[in-house]
């Protein structure tokens, strides 16, 4: 374990140094061509998003034409500036989702594993940002740098993404109204999300170092690889009869990806000791519901940026629609999960209502820009019901997922993708079948990646802590650190 870790460190150090060298060589003489070209593929990806915008905006083509006709983009600078600002703020909002995940996962697990959960989440956001800078971004958006056309591209460190001046639509055009750095930071915040989803599902029993290595590979390599199929302009553009796969902000390429990766890990890992005893389910209640609630509210907040920022500009029409549908779906999901739990369990279950909000949010993520408010409410209501039965189902088949990540992100991610075809108000030609192909491809890739990579790690180093350590808690076992110190700690020193 230690060796793998040190290797990792070394590799990281080397890449950073390499990046610096490259950077040092490239920067001074004068602005060279931007590393991330605004390639055809990128433009195509952007155009897909613009599609949604344009359809809503039929009244304003005059203005848009005006902007495009200006050789210098002079007057348009302000729209560009406001869009770029929104991108940065949206990145900050997505960032805070990582705190949301950390507190939600900590709240829904036992006190004795809290330091471990928190450490994993701190690690993932840190490592996620770095690997995305050193490899992921370029691999995610390969432009015309594919190794296997539309399917896989190598990554490399980002360079000076302001090389084009950083102040015009030159980087991404009207539909990607941001600078290269804006694009990078927003996407980088997304990247770490997928690995964080897994972290909740494997909580309370996974060995730390193997998981860190796995999650580094997941966030660093697998996420941008699979993501390139859709957002990078890859093969998914030919789905739905050429209309392209519809996954607005990532129900599939972020959430289902994370959820199915989690499923693979849980299959290899097995349930927590004592969860299923003699055919009976014995719930292991989370230790801190206020923490879990803080987590869900922060995730809801962050989703304003996750979906809202995915408009990729500050275009007022789509922006207003997207935040409205997002909020309504979340509300509907929370309410329906609460009501269903009340009807089936006799009492209203806070932990379910919280999962319901997230279910609604994941469900609307694929389609927030193409559904009506009423559609978003129905998508959310159904997502809340789905998550309730899904959680029960996975418990029944003894897939132990302490925070419900597989149900919330995996199952509801699929629902969101299908809902894009079912509730589309823009007649864009998305079909249930086409959507299904896309999400199955993403889910299968995530599942297989997990089974193979985590499987190899399992054979090489093991992936599960000892039964004793699980009983005592991973905080002491893995970290030698406890999350809470009361009167006693004070007394003892």
């Amino acid at each position, binding site marked *: 374990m230690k060796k793998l870790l040190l290797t990792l460190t070394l590799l990281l150090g080397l890449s950073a140094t390499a990046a610096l060298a490259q950077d040092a060589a490239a920067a001074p003489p004068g602005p060279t061509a931007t590393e991330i070209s605004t390639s055809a593929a990128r433009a195509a990806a952007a155009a897909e998003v613009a599609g949604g915008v344009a359809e809503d905006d039929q009244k304003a083509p005059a203005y848009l034409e005006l902007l495009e006709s200006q050789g210098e983009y002079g007057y348009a600078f302000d729209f560009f500036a406001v869009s770029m600002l929104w991108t940065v703020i949206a990145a900050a909002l997505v960032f805070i989702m990582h705190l949301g995940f950390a507190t939600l996962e900590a709240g*829904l697990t036992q006190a004795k594993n809290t330091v471990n959960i928190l450490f994993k989440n701190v690690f993932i956001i840190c490592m996620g940002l770095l690997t995305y800078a050193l490899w992921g971004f370029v691999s995610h958006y390969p432009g015309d740098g594919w190794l296997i056309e539309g399917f896989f591209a190598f990554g490399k460190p980002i360079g000076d993404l302001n090389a084009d001046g950083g102040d015009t639509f030159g980087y991404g055009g009207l539909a990607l109204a941001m600078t290269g750095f804006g694009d990078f930071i927003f996407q980088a915040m997304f990247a770490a999300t997928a690995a964080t989803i897994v972290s909740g599902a494997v909580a309370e029993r996974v060995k730390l170092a193997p998981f860190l290595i796995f999650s580094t590979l997941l966030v660093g390599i697998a996420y941008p690889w699979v993501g390139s199929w859709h957002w990078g302009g890859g093969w998914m553009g030919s789905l739905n009869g050429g209309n392209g796969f519809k996954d607005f902000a990532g129900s599939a390429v972020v959430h289902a990806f994370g959820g199915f990766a989690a499923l693979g890990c849980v299959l290899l890992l097995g349930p927590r000791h004592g969860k299923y005893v003699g055919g009976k389910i*014995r719930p292991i*209640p989370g230790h801190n519901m206020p923490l879990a609630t803080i987590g869900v509210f922060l995730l809801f907040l962050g989703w304003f940026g996750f979906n809202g920022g995915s408009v990729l500009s500050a275009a007022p029409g789509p922006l207003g629609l997207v935040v409205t549908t997002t909020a309504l779906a979340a509300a509907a999901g929370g309410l329906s999960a609460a009501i269903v739990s009340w009807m089936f369990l006799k009492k209203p*279950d806070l932990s*379910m209502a919280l*999962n319901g909000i997230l279910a609604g949010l994941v469900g609307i993520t694929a389609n927030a820009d193409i559904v009506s408010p009423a559609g978003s409410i129905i998508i959310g209501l159904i997502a809340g019901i789905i998550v309730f039965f899904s959680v*029960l189902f996975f418990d029944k088949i003894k897939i132990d997922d302490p925070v419900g990540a597989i149900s919330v992100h995996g199952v509801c991610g699929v629902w969101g993708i299908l809902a894009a075809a079912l509730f589309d108000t823009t007649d864009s030609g998305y079909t249930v079948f086409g959507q299904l192909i896309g999400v199955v491809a993403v889910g299968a890739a995530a599942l297989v990646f997990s089974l193979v990579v985590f499987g190899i790690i399992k054979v090489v180093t093991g992936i599960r802590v000892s039964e004793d350590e699980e009983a005592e808690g991973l905080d002491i076992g893995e970290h030698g650190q406890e999350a809470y110190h009361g009167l006693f700690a004070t007394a003892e020193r």
Partner: protein
Amino acid sequence: MKKIEAIIKPFKLEEVKEALNEVGIEGMTVTEVKGFGRQKGHTEIYRGSEYTVDFLPKLKVEVVTADNQVEAAVGAIVKAAKTGKIGDGKVFVSPVEEAVRIRTEEKGEAAV
């Protein structure tokens, strides 16, 4: 000397304390405990599954006192802690051979 240990319902502490004060007992030590007994636990729900919680929150009040005060003290506790509903708790009396007040090193009944 005797030690009186009373397991009571948490919200009865204040009344028990006052009842003990009234019979002249001015020292006691209280611990948060969980009790299991005839009072059946309740069902709880968590993320869609039910489970039974058998252990209920109680408080344990410990009083060490002179032999001749035991009866009054036990009586006071029982009176104050009773609601008549199941789960009211128990009082146990056991022998104590020695007591020392740390501050003064007084021993025996003078110490309690």
